[in-house]
């Protein structure tokens, strides 16, 4: 399992080198969106309208942060459970997004979309909101402020630690890891 440092936006060249189980330190700009925001973003794409950010090579972080303390760019910001975005992610990948950060397993349609569009599903440590929030150096709400924690934010990350769960070759770390450590009677 290899370690990489990557800067967004990601290209197919970036994502194709990654394999399930690799660890990556992400740098650059990423965008936050979870349930309600995804519904709106995918509706825009399907109507052929512009998104509030450039989707090409983008990495989307499934997160609903806590309110920032005075002087901080963002509050605690760990990943939320990703399967709730399963019905939206294939569309996002089809329109050019290259990465997603969340926690928990994805369905086969998302895994197939990762293969087809050179997308990566990264896992971050759930519940490590204080640690991950500190890797975010700036944050700005760029759409849907009325959604509160679910608003779309443009954030800058520095050495944000993630692990490759689903790669562009159809591998799944959750399955691989479990098979390795399962004890069968």
């Amino acid at each position, binding site marked *: 399992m290899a370690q990489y440092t990557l800067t967004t936006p990601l290209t197919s060249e970036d994502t194709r080198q990654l394999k399930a*189980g690799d660890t990556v330190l992400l740098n650059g700009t990423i965008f936050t969106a979870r349930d309600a925001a995804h519904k709106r973003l995918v509706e825009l794409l399907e109507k052929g309208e512009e998104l509030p950010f450039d989707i090409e090579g983008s990495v989307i972080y499934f997160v609903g942060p806590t309110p920032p*303390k005075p002087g901080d760019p963002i*509050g605690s910001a760990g990943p939320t459970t990703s399967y709730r975005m399963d019905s939206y992610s294939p569309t996002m990948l089809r329109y050019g997004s290259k990465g997603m950060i969340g926690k928990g397993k994805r369905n086969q349609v998302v895994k197939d979309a990762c293969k087809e569009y050179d997308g990566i599903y990264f*896992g971050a440590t759930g519940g490590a*909101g*204080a640690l991950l929030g500190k890797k975010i150096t700036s944050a700005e709400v760029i759409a849907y402020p009325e959604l509160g924690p679910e608003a779309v934010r443009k954030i800058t990350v520095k050495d944000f630690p993630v692990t490759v769960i689903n790669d562009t070759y159809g591998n799944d770390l959750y399955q*691989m890891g479990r098979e390795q450590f399962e004890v069968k009677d």
Partner: protein
Amino acid sequence: MREIEFDEVVKAVRDIIVHCGTDLPQDTYDALKEAMETEKSPVSKEVIRQILENADIAKDEKRPLCQDTGLAVFFVKVGDEVKIKGGLLKDAINKGTEQGYTDAYLRASTCEPFSRANLKDTVGYNLPAIIHFDIVAGDKIDIEYAAKGGGSENVSRARVFPPAAGKEGIVNYVKEVISDAGGNPCPPITVGVGIGGTFEKACISSKHALFRDIGSVNEDPEMAELETTILEEINKLGIGAMGMGGTKTALAVHIESNPCHIASLPVSVNVQCHSSRHTHITI
């Protein structure tokens, strides 16, 4: 009759919410530390290391441990010789909850079930709290509190078995629930199992079982043995920290058992993530 001021309850509740949001309880911290030492998967080991580092940062810098600051859940034992002066106990707990979530910059996670609208502007901040009351003898109020996150709550399940299912049926059911959950509830988890009673009694018992300190032993030796058996079976699943594969999927299994109807064997499984924010105070 002992009189307790409404505002005294508000302040006590506010304080435990602020404290729990940023400071992982010692029982959980110790259990995670031990899990990091015994975990055989390097990937899972690194995840648990990050979880512990996160707890240290949260405590030192007073930051929320997790962005999912949960719904506020209370088990409250009210002495029959206590009177709240200046309002209802329920209102005092809700007011303390609102203040705690606001003062500690915790996230407002309560919403209307269908519109999904956040209720902050209508009935308050992360309200209403989930409160289970019990009346006991005495002149004190005993409050158990936990912040319950959505990821782990979403994988919880309940089922009523025929009595013939017995212990084997329960062990297999809990294993099935945790196996299906995989990494979603943020393992290493604690598993609360409510056995017996009625359908809803089993569910409430499984939640209450999560409030017990990790490392405590069930007073009933038969239940203590069943807890050990289920824990071993869960850890054979190989799910590991955050589902990345490993030997430590659960830190503990806690059972609460109740007498039940001759026709029924209700069982509820309630899951708690590694960020087990819970505490206990007496007023």
